[in-house]
């Protein structure tokens, strides 16, 4: 091969080399600091508020509570933080929010605690010593039940002293609960049964076979109990929607889902005559219906609905889109007719709502 003289372009190349190096050095000086988003000052109205519970990411301690003021459509994404500036960290995986005796009870699942806040959402106390709490059900002004992911028990807490007083053995992962006729009905994600607890004696009295993965429960206008079981796709067990007569603890009516369905998040509307639930999209079903809805009421499209709520004040439907699970959720508000009214951002992995 012919020899080529390389010295001529050499000078240029060395200069080019120096310039390239300089560019590398300069490129290291670009500012890296992300822009802090300044929360705009929000004037809250007297309208009833909607609180969004944001789980955050498991193990990351980045839960939050967002507030939506329907009076002026204002959103405070980090409401808990803004009300508790001296100790703004909630903990790991905020699961649910209840208001009892004008106090908020924020259940923080993976931190094993319940944060007690006043009606302005300022932390006043906390209930610890819980294993992996999920939901709170007030029984009396003084007593509440707390369901749990792994305690194999319902914990009983004293609302005055903010302490755990006793526990009711209840195997499996207990989830949402309702109270009717001195009975607490407790759903269970790991068992085929929904358990019945006598709230006077604090003891388990009965169990109702509603299917595995039963996690949401509602009381309709006729005082009938509706339990939604998600089934288990891995083991080809179908989901089920059951209507229970709480007087007899008997299932009066039961609807079976199809393969690959994963129904969850059962809700009732203001007049307690229409059920809503998630199964990818949002489904709607009158309590008088004789069959499960075939078509979705609101399609999910590319949305990842992770939480659902129906505003008891005005029939609006709130759905939380968790997107890729690692960014701010988008909360969609739909009218009773299913038309989208607006959307706003909340924290990471919004899983539910508390409507004032």
């Amino acid at each position, binding site marked *: *091969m012919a*020899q*080529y003289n*390389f010295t001529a372009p*050499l000078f240029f*190349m*060395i200069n080019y*080399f120096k310039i390239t*190096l300089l*560019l*590398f*050095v300069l*490129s*290291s000086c670009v500012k*890296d*600091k*992300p822009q802090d*988003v300044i929360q705009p000052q929000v004037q809250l109205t007297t309208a009833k508020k909607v609180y969004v519970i944001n789980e955050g*990411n498991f*193990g*990351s*301690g*980045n839960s939050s509570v967002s507030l939506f003021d329907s009076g002026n459509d204002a959103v405070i994404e980090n409401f808990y933080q803004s009300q508790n500036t*001296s*100790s*703004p*960290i909630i903990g*790991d995986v905020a699961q649910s929010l209840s208001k009892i005796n004008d106090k908020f009870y924020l259940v923080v699942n*993976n*931190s*094993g605690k319940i944060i007690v806040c006043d009606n302005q959402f300022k932390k006043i106390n906390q209930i*610890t*010593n819980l294993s*992996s709490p999920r939901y709170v059900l007030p029984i009396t002004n003084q007593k509440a039940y707390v369901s749990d*992911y*792994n305690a194999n028990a319902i914990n009983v807490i004293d609302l005055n002293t903010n302490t755990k007083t006793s526990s009711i053995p209840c195997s499996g*992962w207990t989830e949402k609960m309702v109270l009717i006729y001195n009975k607490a009905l407790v759903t269970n994600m*790991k068992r085929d049964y929904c358990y019945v607890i006598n709230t006077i004696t604090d003891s388990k009295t009965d169990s109702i076979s509603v299917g595995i993965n039963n996690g949401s429960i509602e009381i309709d206008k006729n005082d009938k109990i509706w339990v939604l079981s998600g089934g288990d*796709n*891995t083991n080809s067990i179908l989901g089920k929607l059951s209507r229970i007569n709480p007087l007899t603890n008997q299932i009066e009516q039961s609807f079976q889902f199809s393969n*690959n*369905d*994963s129904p969850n998040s059962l809700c009732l509307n203001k007049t307690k005559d229409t059920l809503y639930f*998630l199964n*990818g999209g949002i489904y709607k079903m009158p309590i008088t219906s004789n069959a499960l809805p075939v078509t979705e009421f609101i399609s999910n*499209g*590319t*949305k*990842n*609905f992770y939480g659902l709520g129906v505003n008891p004040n005005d029939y609006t439907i709130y759905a939380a*889109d968790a*997107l*890729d*699970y*690692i*960014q*701010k959720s*988008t909360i969609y508000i739909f009218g009773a007719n299913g038309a989208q009214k607006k*959307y706003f951002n909340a924290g*990471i992995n919004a899983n539910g709502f508390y409507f004032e």
Partner: protein
Amino acid sequence: MRLKTHKNYQKLTVTINKHFACGFNFKIKAVILLALATNYFFAQDTISLKNVEVRANRIELSRIGKKTETIDSTIKQQFKFNSIADVLSLNTPIFIKSYGPGALSTTSFRGGNASQTAILWNGFNIQNAMLGQSDLSLIPASLFENIEIEYGGSSSLWGSGAVGGSIHLKNSNLFNQGLTTSASIGAGSFGLKNLSTNILFSKSRFISSTKVYNNISNNNFNYKDTTDKENQIKQQKNADYNFLGLMQELKFLINSKQILSVNAWINSNQRRLPSYDYKTESKTYQDDVASRITADWSFINTNFKSTIRAGYFNDKINYTDSLVQLFSKSKTQTLIAENENYLTWNKKHQLNFGVNFTSSSATTNNYASTKSLNKLSFLLGNKFSFLNNKLLVYTAARIDYFSTGAFPITGNVSADYKLTKQIALTLNGAKVYRHPTLNELYWLPGGNINLKPEQGYTQEGAINYNRQINNTTFFVSGAVFNRKINDWILWIPGAGGNPSPINIQQVWSRGAETTWRVNYIKNKFRCAVNIVTGYVLSTIESNNQENNNSVNKQLIYTPRYTINSNVLIGYKKTAITFFNQYVGYRYTTSDNSQWLNPYQISSLRLNHTINFKVISFNVFGACNNLFNENYTILLGRPMPLRNYEIGITLQTKK
């Protein structure tokens, strides 16, 4: 050849120049020189060159057109009891996503994710077939003499996953070196205890190397919780670990043309997974047990080399959380059979071709049944040398037939060009891919059998400047890269609301890296300064979810800036190194609304050798997190404050 003086060191340089016939690949030469020089000063007195293996192999081809780096042997000695996660984190621009000491550590290489890095042991990819990634905290650095980092995509040579870069772990022991035995014992903060032994038996036709290691720690370090005003200093609980392993390597020189090697690496790693302050308690533990066996037979003739290789990897991961009654067991088996051939058919051309069959299967309670994935690959390439070996070009094409029906075709055009004695350029353009993992395909619920491989194109170039003035060598390197990956796999909800992976995103990664090295050696004194910088922009270019705010945002846990620097000072048999690491902002959400602050940590490592006739002692000490910096690499995963390691190695040589 026996070398005693510095003059001889320079002679050695010349000898090696001649020896590496082409004398061409000078960045490698520089590395080898450095390694030899440091060995000369701090490890051994004798270096034999008689049987340096000049081999045609895939690593050599893969180096063409790419920036490659080998960890300095003196520095490697100072990480005797650490995992390769620590070595890579402090010495390269690779970002190591570490959940803490002894906990899961994976790579982010040039803006890619853990499964877009190939981790190769003697040329076999050891990534777990279910997860598509390896936990680097379970790979002790002391097992390998040579840790080589290859920057840039090379799927055509290494297959699925060689997207952001590749990490080569290997030993290349020489024949006829006699018997070397060594035993190391170490201890450190938080109940750290290390033990390792190495017996190397090297005859004229046979080498046996046996390494045993055991690393134990209570790992109950203190950390600062700045959110808790009353109780700032907290202790990590339930994080103890016990890593045990054995590596046996055998090499036979059958005759002047045939070499057979058989290697086995068996390890059992038990650890508890900590709870941190968010949670009240944890009863989680994980066992990782792996057996890896490989065999390699090579036939070498003047113009032809052929290799037949096979590997069997068995990985078991048992995860138990008794609090929530979660008992997950998984078992993965991978069988690899491979043939590769190198034919120098002309003075300037070397042809290589090969075939590879890989079969992976996994059994876990999260799959409906045992699932398997088979692959048959064909590779064809040619290396050209032009202009008196000043220009080296390598092109290759590969096709992989997967049992899933996918058949990604990849290829590369790569070139090394030696512009002057001091300046060399490298250029690489490649098509790269990553096949979905078994979990992505078959996990229940959600696994998606219709996933396509992630595919894309990468271009990278580097310019290297190397100069020796008297006793000082300078090495400066600047590299840029650009890569777009389509069909990036992301878990989002599928039918029925269950999360399911789909090919949804396009990700564009680009950036620049620089390396600055000054090495001064005079008589028995050595001073080296190394600075390695990385700048990575890795952004999501498209995502079809409505109101998804991740488009044009930086990928999570991908710092834009990393700067590693160290200063090594050696005199006679003593070396002390000061390390400093800066890692910039890491976003924790895909919409970049939340992030972790940058951190800067320093450490000091030193070793000192005392030589007697047949025995030598090497004393080692380290102080990590010198300035007691409170930092986390990942959200909610605290890292230890200042801590210490000490150890001693006893070595005999006959």
